[in-house]
């Protein structure tokens, strides 16, 4: 009985979350399409033609997976961060808190909503890429697994960010100062094997390196890191972030006085 109730509650949160980003599609779905087009024009057409090959592929093909991954990361993160923070701000999070909704359902609902946006934007960006470059697929399962796990990781991150956030500024600090730099240094635009040995070592502690490389493997069949390691890193992140999110919500941090 209560598991049926939980499923209905989970569906309601997912419905609400998906409904939210679809309602404001001009702010949520259009910008990534524009951004990726710009990347293609600048890095692909203008600069890329001078770079030549990277990892045995022409530069455009090489950066496509990373660019898609970048949109998935930003969108799954910011969807949950904005939505959950705004639910705190408008206090409509109380609608869930007064109802018999277990905390894991709240976490799963918001994370699911963030994943939905991350994956949808990933798909849009992939379609836009097709206008500029032929996309080949080496292993579809690796692509699906990577995109699913990555969006879950960053959706959880966005949720934790929103729980701690006290103002709208607080939900843009992490994306600006941590997420964006890590993504740019995460091997989206270059193979880390090109880096000096020291910086290669430093890159190993950047989780985004693993996600981008696993994803690129799915398309091109090349990777700077082993897939096993990449999936272990992703799995570990999801478990750790989930435990943190659950602990915070159970304690009512930022939710109950």
């Amino acid at each position: 009985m209560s598991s049926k109730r939980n499923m209905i509650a989970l569906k309601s949160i997912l419905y609400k979350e998906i409904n939210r980003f679809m309602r404001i599609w001009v702010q949520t779905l259009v910008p990534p399409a524009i951004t990726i087009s710009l990347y293609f024009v600048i890095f692909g057409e203008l600069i890329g033609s001078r770079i030549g090959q990277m990892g045995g592929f022409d530069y455009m093909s090489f950066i496509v997976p990373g660019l898609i991954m970048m949109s998935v990361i930003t969108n799954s993160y910011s969807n949950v961060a904005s939505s959950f923070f705004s639910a705190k701000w408008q206090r409509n999070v109380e609608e869930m808190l007064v109802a018999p909704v277990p905390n894991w359902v709240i976490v799963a609902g918001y994370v699911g909503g963030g994943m939905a946006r991350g994956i949808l934007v990933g798909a849009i960006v992939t379609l836009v890429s097709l206008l500029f470059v032929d996309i080949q697929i080496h292993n579809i399962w690796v692509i699906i697994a990577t995109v699913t796990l990555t969006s879950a990781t960053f959706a959880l991150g966005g949720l934790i960010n929103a729980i701690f956030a006290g103002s709208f500024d607080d939900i843009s600090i992490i994306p600006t100062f941590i997420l964006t730099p890590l993504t740019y240094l995460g091997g989206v635009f270059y193979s880390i094997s090109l880096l000096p040995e020291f910086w290669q070592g430093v890159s190993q502690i950047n989780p985004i390196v693993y996600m981008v490389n696993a994803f690129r493997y799915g398309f091109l069949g090349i990777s700077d890191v082993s897939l096993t390691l990449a999936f272990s890193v992703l799995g570990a992140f999801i478990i750790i972030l989930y435990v943190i999110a659950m602990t915070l919500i159970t304690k009512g941090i930022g939710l109950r006085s």
Partner: protein
Amino acid sequence: MDNALEISGLKKVYKGGFTALKGIDLIVKQGDFFALLGPNGAGKSTTIGIITSLVNKSAGSVKVFGHDIDKELEKAKSFLGLVPQEFNFNQFETLLTILVNQAGYYGVERPLAFQRAEKYLKQLDLWEKRNDAGRMLSGGMKRRLMIARALMHEPQMLILDEPTAGVDIELRRSMWEFLRELNQQGITIILTTHYLEEAEMLCRNIAIIDSGVIVEDTDMKSLLSKLDQETIVLDIDKITEAPKLDEFTTRLIDDHTLEVDVKKSQLVNHVFSQLSAKNINVHSMRNKSNRLEELFVSLVGSGQNVNQESK
């Protein structure tokens, strides 16, 4: 039969050290229409917040229809519908979305939720607005939307935190009527207010809270008769037993202090004439200061505009 609500020894110390509840006890019977009356800052919303698990308690226990919120929180929650003091719905969602999702959180399937949403939106005169965003509503409509939302899972008990604050008198009356009907259908209702008149109009039982302490917990009739009388304290000749006076209640506090309850409609002369007839001399008299009385002087100030306040 379990009580609808049993609160005992409830304490709340907010972060920063402020004690909002100093250990309160309350019992609300099933089917009751119960008022929690008190001035601003008394601790009404804190109490409601703890019952509905939006505020963590510091000590004490709360049982909802026999289910302890520490042990069976989800069960307890399923009995409750809350209409909070502040608007707390998503301003950008449509009324239908808000209601149907809320029902979903309680496990109500969407088709049934749509039926109920239609029923309550119609009853509360909001059906025309069903596809408008919450922010488009007037204050009174927002309040009614929150009532509809609280009813979506058909709770056994409805808790309303100052539901008529900022609602004009016309609407207030129709809201009262609506609540009365719900109560007649068997739903237990708890309502907080700082208008005595509102409590008087609707409620059978009442507790009065002030500075985190329950100062009175009684039925409406006794409260009104209590408020209708004053107690005078007489300094008298030494006697051993309280004299019996016609129409007045007397209490001997010590051998030369007598308290007499005098209703506002009675004359104090009659106390003196009867005492003289019994050869009891009164040396001096004063009014007994009464916390309840004082509290009401402060409440009456706000209670008087119950008919004037709009918006």
